[in-house]
């Protein structure tokens, strides 16, 4: 099949060699990537690049020189085996030294045999890198609850997985991917990267698919997927149904189970076990807590008893002292009471003494009083009598009482009582006082006897 390049009129133009090679290369570039199938021969590997020949078969003479370098070389180095049937992807190119080659960008094994051989080689390669070593693999977290599930929404795998997972509070986030075909590898690696970037708190990733032949499992045997799994920060569990050998994904995964159902059972049992363990530990915790409390109680009780004993001892020590103190206190108190009683009696006696003395005095006083009274009364009576006597005497001596008997007294005008005639003369007026009233008389005659 010949694709005709644009017709340019070069009949008059003469190239230099360099111009010519450049011209040819520019022309070849327009072909872009082309695929050629064949057997690998004459491999010459250097550090960063390799050359090999591609032939239709060993017997045929036609040869295409191939050149591979850089990342491409590192990716496909395991396929560069003599006799390996492959399809190479590359761009044709002429070197300045004049020979023609294909610059290879991709190599795929061709046919089951080659695939198996390639797979074996890839496994060897990855093994050398240490990808399969258990030390490299991540421990699954003890508590798995949130799961990032990578599988096809339409496959049987997801049904099996969900059915067997049971209802234990798992939270499953699904990213549906193609699990076979050309896009599978890209979608699966993208899903792993997406979960790592956007759901970094998930407990684990689960990558599953149902069974299939080696062709169908191509994506799971890819070196790129292996790299992605190895670099994933989230642990990855695989459950890829297959007949015999494990896929590379299985070999690099942190945990590998044979089928989606097995993964589900594993997770479920782990969780059940965990729940049971938690319950058991909870019980043990309670038991040990109770035991601790009991022990503490016993300790406290012991302390209490010890304390009581200690206090008792202290009391015992001071007890006799206290008893004797109490007794002497009692004794002195009773002494005090006794002496008080005595004093009281004394005081009483004294008071009785005073009282009787007082009574005596009072009695004496009464007598004296009566005597005084009597004496006084006598004296008074005496005076009275005397007075009465004097009074009667005086009355009897009242000169005017004589008048009552008819006597009278005569006075001169000067008020002198007339006892002698010489006191008056004829013609004098005399005043005669009677018992009642007075008489003025003129003297007519005087007789001297």
């Amino acid at each position, binding site marked *: 099949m010949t694709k005709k390049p644009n017709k340019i009129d070069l009949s008059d133009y003469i190239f230099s060699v360099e111009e010519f090679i450049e011209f040819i290369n520019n022309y070849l570039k327009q072909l872009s990537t082309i695929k050629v199938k064949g057997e690998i021969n004459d491999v010459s590997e250097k550090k960063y690049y390799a050359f090999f020949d591609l032939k239709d078969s060993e017997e045929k003479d036609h040869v295409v020189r191939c050149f591979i370098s850089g990342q491409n070389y590192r990716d496909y180095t395991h396929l560069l085996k003599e006799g390996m049937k492959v399809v190479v992807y590359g761009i044709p190119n002429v070197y300045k030294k004049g020979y023609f080659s294909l610059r290879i960008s991709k190599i795929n094994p061709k046919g089951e045999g080659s695939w198996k051989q390639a797979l074996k080689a890839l496994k060897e390669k990855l093994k050398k890198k240490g990808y399969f070593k258990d030390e490299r693999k991540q421990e699954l977290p003890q508590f798995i609850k949130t799961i990032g599930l990578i599988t096809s929404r339409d496959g049987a795998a997801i049904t099996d997985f969900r059915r067997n997972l049971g209802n234990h509070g798992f939270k499953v986030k699904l990213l549906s991917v193609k699990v076979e075909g050309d896009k599978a590898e890209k979608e699966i690696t993208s899903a792993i990267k997406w979960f790592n970037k956007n759901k970094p708190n998930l407990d684990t990733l689960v990558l599953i698919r149902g069974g299939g032949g080696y062709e169908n499992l191509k994506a799971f045997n890819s070196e790129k997927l292996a790299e992605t799994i190895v670099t994933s920060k989230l642990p990855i569990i695989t459950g890829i149904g297959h007949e015999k050998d494990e896929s590379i994904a299985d070999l690099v995964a942190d945990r590998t189970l044979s089928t989606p159902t097995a993964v589900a059972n594993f997770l479920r049992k782990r969780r059940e076990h965990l729940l049971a363990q938690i319950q058991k530990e909870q019980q043990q915790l309670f038991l040990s807590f109770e035991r601790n409390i009991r022990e503490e109680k016993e300790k406290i009780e012991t302390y209490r008893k010890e304390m009581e004993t200690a206090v008792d001892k202290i009391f015992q020590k001071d007890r006799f002292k206290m008893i004797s103190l109490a007794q002497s206190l009692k004794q002195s108190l009773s002494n005090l009471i006794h002496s008080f009683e005595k004093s009281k009696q004394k005081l009483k006696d004294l008071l009785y003494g005073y009282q009787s003395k007082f009574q005596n005095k009072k009695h004496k006083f009464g007598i004296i009083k009566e005597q005084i*009274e009597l004496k006084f009364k006598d004296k008074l009576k005496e*005076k009275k009598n005397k*007075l009465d006597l*004097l009074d009667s005497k*005086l009355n009897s001596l009242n*000169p005017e009482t004589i008048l009552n008997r008819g006597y009278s007294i005569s006075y001169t005008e000067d008020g002198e*009582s007339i006892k002698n005639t010489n006191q008056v003369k004829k013609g004098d007026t005399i005043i005669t006082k009677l018992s009642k009233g007075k008489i003025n008389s003129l003297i007519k005659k005087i007789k001297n006897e």
Partner: protein
Amino acid sequence: MSKENLQKSLEELEKIVKELEDEDINVEESLRKFKKGVSLIKDCRSKLEGIENDFEELKKELEEETN
């Protein structure tokens, strides 16, 4: 008023009575003395009465105190 005063008054009264018993005494003098004697008697009686009252009062006070 004192006991001495009463005593004096009684003595004076006694003297007056004696003087009045003397027959030599003239009427005017006797009447004067008599009047003096009467006033002394009145005076003595009232004195005696006062003393008696005082005594009774004191006696009463004393009895009240003693009881």
